């Protein structure tokens, strides 16, 4: 008997189509396992979200996505999905900003966050478009993802594409509810509380950027509020994963494959409250 899993990509604005393409490409590698049937869908409404076992929040403009989500009554269902049900969710770039419990350098008057990751994200950490860049990333977690392929496949660097990208500026203590300490920091917005009240896992650093140019580094030093977490570009906390770069702009499906595997594991471990049979 094969299992049906539905993965949604939030399609309010941004590069959602690119994620669906790479998910489809990644899922082809599962064919040999034969026990999962994947369905990838665009999500624009609470009903569509409710049918999903897992969700990707793509790159785009985080203010646009957050405003449209708020106006169409999707913000609370999203918080419920990520923070109460703890269903697997991955945010890229704008998605990472929305999944942060705390963010700064947001638009005037702040912006609504979904939350789920106990981190503070600096929204325009790497600057404007003319400062956008590509950098090879060593992603240790990919090496554990598959053992059935040649080693170069798992060890070669991943091409990180950073476009007006954010970065994780600070890891926050894992607390239930909202990050009250962060609310007091000037120019910072926080996500509102949404059960569960028991603390979840600690935040893991999944990738950092090494070897940045000295000029840029000096500039970043000046901007940086916290030393500890300068160039963190991927984090995970339980079922919630965030990257400040754009795997969806490459043709490399390794991260998508790894993430789909983790979705499967989360569903198998029953961390997910969705009745699998109803999602077919």
């Amino acid at each position, binding site marked *: 008997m094969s299992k049906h899993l539905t993965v949604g990509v939030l399609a309010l604005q941004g590069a959602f189509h690119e994620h669906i393409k790479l998910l489809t490409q990644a899922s082809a590698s599962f064919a040999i396992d034969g026990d999962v049937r994947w369905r990838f869908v665009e999500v624009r409404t609470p009903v569509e979200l409710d049918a999903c076992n897992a969700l990707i929040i793509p790159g785009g403009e985080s203010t646009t996505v957050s405003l449209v989500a708020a106006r169409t009554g999707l913000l609370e269902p999203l918080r419920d999905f990520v923070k109460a049900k703890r269903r697997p969710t991955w945010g890229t770039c704008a998605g990472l900003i929305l999944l942060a419990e705390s963010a700064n350098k947001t638009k005037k008057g702040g912006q609504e966050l979904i939350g789920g990751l106990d981190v503070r994200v600096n929204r325009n950490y790497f600057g404007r478009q*003319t400062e956008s860049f590509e950098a090879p990333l060593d992603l240790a977690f990919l090496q554990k993802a598959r053992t059935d392929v040649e080693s170069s496949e798992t060890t070669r660097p991943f091409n990180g594409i950073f476009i007006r990208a954010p970065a994780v500026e600070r890891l926050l203590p894992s607390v239930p509810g909202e990050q009250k300490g962060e609310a007091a920091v000037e120019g910072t917005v926080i996500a509102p509380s949404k059960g569960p009240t028991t603390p979840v896992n600690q935040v893991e650093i999944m990738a950092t950027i090494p070897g940045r140019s000295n000029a840029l580094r000096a500039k970043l030093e000046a901007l940086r509020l916290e030393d500890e977490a300068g160039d963190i570009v991927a984090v995970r906390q339980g079922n919630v994963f965030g990257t400040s770069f754009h795997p969806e702009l490459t043709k*490399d499906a390794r991260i998508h494959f790894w993430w789909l595997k983790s979705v499967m594991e989360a569903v198998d471990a029953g961390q997910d409250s969705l009745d699998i049979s109803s999602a077919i």
Partner: protein
Amino acid sequence: MTSSKPSASTNDPTKFTIKSGLAKMLKGGVIMDVINAEQARIAEEAGACAVMALERVPADIRAQGGVARMSDPHMIKEIMDTVTIPVMAKARIGHFVECQILEALGVDYIDESEVLTPADTVHHVEKHPFKVPFVCGCRNLGEALRRIDEGAAMIRTKGEAGTGDVVEAVKHIRTVSSEINRASGMSDMELRVFAKELNAPFHLLKETAEQGRLPVVNFAAGGVATPADAALMMQLGCDGVFVGSGIFKSGDATKRARAIVEAVTHFRDPKILAEVSSGIGEAMVGLNVEKMPNGERLAGRGW
């Protein structure tokens, strides 16, 4: 290869991924013309995915006449300092020094635009050497591919700017789509002939035929005045929408801007379109393109 193929780029594939990548992040969004920081804030709060900073919206350029040029850098800078979303600015066709200035200012995208008075009647700006990405207009596939060949990382199908009449935008996206459909069924030999007919580079035409779409993001621009216009352009295959005079020349800019943003997200849902189209005030008055003499049409600029 880990990176995307150097699609559409002839010179520097690395840079091109970054340039065309930002356009991909704008997809499904609305880019709004604004003439000052206050309007930029209204656009940002409405959910615009970017703003286009310019001194006069096309409707005013049309009404006032005279030479339309790049905007005052001070005004552009003020808008950049006010909003956190990407800021675009327009340069005249062929005016590469205006482009150099805009790049030095740090704008996120340059629009080499027919809405301004052209500075060169033969050449467009050579866009590959710039670090900042460019968006350019087109009326047909050949024009789109010539612009991409010069380095444009994003295309907009030209409507007749400043009119509030969507007819030209529809005509041009239909032209582009039908030419792509024709190309998709062709052999290499046929594509070579078609490339000559379109006056377009063969390799870009082939890439387009293989993908079944333009190799870069394509927005609609010009003549969009209502949420229904915006959704129409999306259903016709555009990746997003530029709205110029349509917002700040209407009765209630805030409401209209929000409605158009929601219409672009939910472009296939007529119920939501009905909802967002309700009670948003007067649309801009508009000019009927059909009755306009050819000399007053802007979309024909570009070579």
